[in-house]
């Protein structure tokens, strides 16, 4: 009880005008960072990160480049180990194996057809005709069913990233870690991809952690925005705006301004 009341006090102090949505308290935990630190020699990349994320939440992590946000994601996906503190997952059998990672680059195998690339996401889960069936189904969801048997090299940048999204989602991950996956796309393709991502997230109910440097993208997509600065959490802000959200609305702009103030203030 003391811990819970302390958390309540802290959330009150951090965001007095926005009470925690009650669902956050009820839902089980997807993962939690507890006092996590990551050092490379003398260089402190992350220090004392506490982050408790409930199942199904869409969290955006924002920060200037080099602030440690990508490292946070790599720890979550098990690509790196924390130097200090611990990382726990909601249920014991899950963990890194049910976490999927979407990279900044599509990272498709150029020698495998689009559908074979999606099947990579089913490694150790399904194979053969079953894998192809599932891969084709998810390709349909990202709108690329008709490109299944083509080589990745003939696709546009946005289409490649959609294949990468399909690959990440085909195994039905519990947690999807996204490392600025839309950063290299042009502005219009990017908005399209954001809408696609939101639609699939709403349908599949996974927990999403999106690292981005685009504040507008973060407030448009996320339930919660975490700002990281100099290896610490500088701001942990809920985005209590109903979906579908209208890009450029006053509410989102107000939150965006608040985050930018924190980043540059």
């Amino acid at each position, binding site marked *: 009880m003391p811990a819970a009341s302390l958390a309540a006090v802290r959330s009150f102090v951090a965001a007095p005008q926005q009470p925690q949505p009650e669902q956050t308290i009820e839902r089980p935990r997807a993962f939690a960072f507890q006092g996590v630190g990551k050092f490379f020699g003398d260089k402190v990349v992350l220090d004392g990160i506490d982050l408790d994320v409930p199942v199904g939440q869409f969290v955006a992590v924002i920060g200037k480049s080099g602030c440690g946000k990508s490292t946070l994601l790599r720890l979550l*996906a098990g*690509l790196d180990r924390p130097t200090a503190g611990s990382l726990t997952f909601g249920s014991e059998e899950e963990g890194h*194996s049910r976490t*999927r*990672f979407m*990279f900044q*680059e599509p*990272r498709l*195998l*150029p*020698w*495998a*057809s689009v559908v*074979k690339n999606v099947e*990579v*996401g089913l*490694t*150790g889960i399904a194979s053969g005709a079953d894998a192809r069936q599932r891969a084709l189904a998810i390709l349909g969801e990202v709108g690329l069913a008709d490109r299944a*048997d083509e*080589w*990745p*090299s*003939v696709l546009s940048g946005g289409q490649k990233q959609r294949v990468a999204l399909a*690959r990440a989602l085909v195994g039905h991950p519990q947690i999807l870690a996204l490392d600025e996956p839309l950063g290299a796309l042009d502005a219009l393709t990017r908005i399209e991809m954001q809408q696609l991502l939101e639609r699939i997230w709403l349908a599949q109910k996974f927990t999403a952690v999106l690292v981005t440097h685009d504040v507008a993208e973060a407030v448009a997509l996320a339930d919660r925005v975490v700002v990281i600065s100099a290896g610490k959490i500088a701001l942990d802000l809920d985005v209590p705006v109903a979906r579908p959200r209208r890009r450029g609305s006053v509410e989102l702009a107000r939150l965006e301004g608040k985050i930018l103030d924190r980043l540059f203030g």
Partner: protein
Amino acid sequence: MSFSTRLATPLATRLGRNGIGWLLPVLVIAGWEIASRAGLMPPNVLPAPSAVAEAFWRLTLSGELIRNIGVSTARALAGFAVGGSIGFALGLANGLSTLSRGLTDTTLQMIRNIPHLALIPLVILWFGIDEEAKLFLVALGVFFPIYVNTLLGIQSVDPQLVEMGRVYGMDRRALFFRVILPGALPAIFVGLRYALGIMWLTLIVAETISASSGLGYMAMQAREFLLIDVVVLSILIYALLGKLADSLARLLERLSLGWHPAFQNA
């Protein structure tokens, strides 16, 4: 590995495109025949193509030509199989393991700088003029292009793709067959084509110096008896065999590298 390349180009166009490469050799032969018939080229310097064709027919009927081509091809392939597989295996080992590379690469790079044909006197002393001598020289000649390019191919595989494979739970076996080997394949093919050239070169040199059968031997015998048409015939057959080997390698390349933008010009 997917072999589903879209061979959509019509056959006639493909024949036309390949056929144009044969236009020049045919013209050269025709010009040569005319020059010989006109007496511009004495037969003891260069016999007419028709004389070479006659020699071809004579040697085919006697079975000598087929036998010698057979002997030479068997030697070439045996040497290629031995040298190529050792080169490929070492290239893989050194590409995948830093320990193996640290242990052997320096030595191999030193040996690579010795022209393998310079070893002929030594090889004759070791093996005489038996089959082992030719096998050894061909294997040694083929080894290096395959080794160097396999190693290079594996080292140039995109580390981001390897990381992706790991994140998606590929075990070492899957990682090798689905990411590393296909990524190294374009470089391995460069090595293969280069090795095929070296294979014929080495074999012919070895056969002209020390052999009792094979195409090189046939040419040297013909020189002894001043059968210049047979000498020219042997040279032409080298050219054809070399072209055949290269075409086979290119076909394999096209079938297995259909994903590569360089092979999608159709």
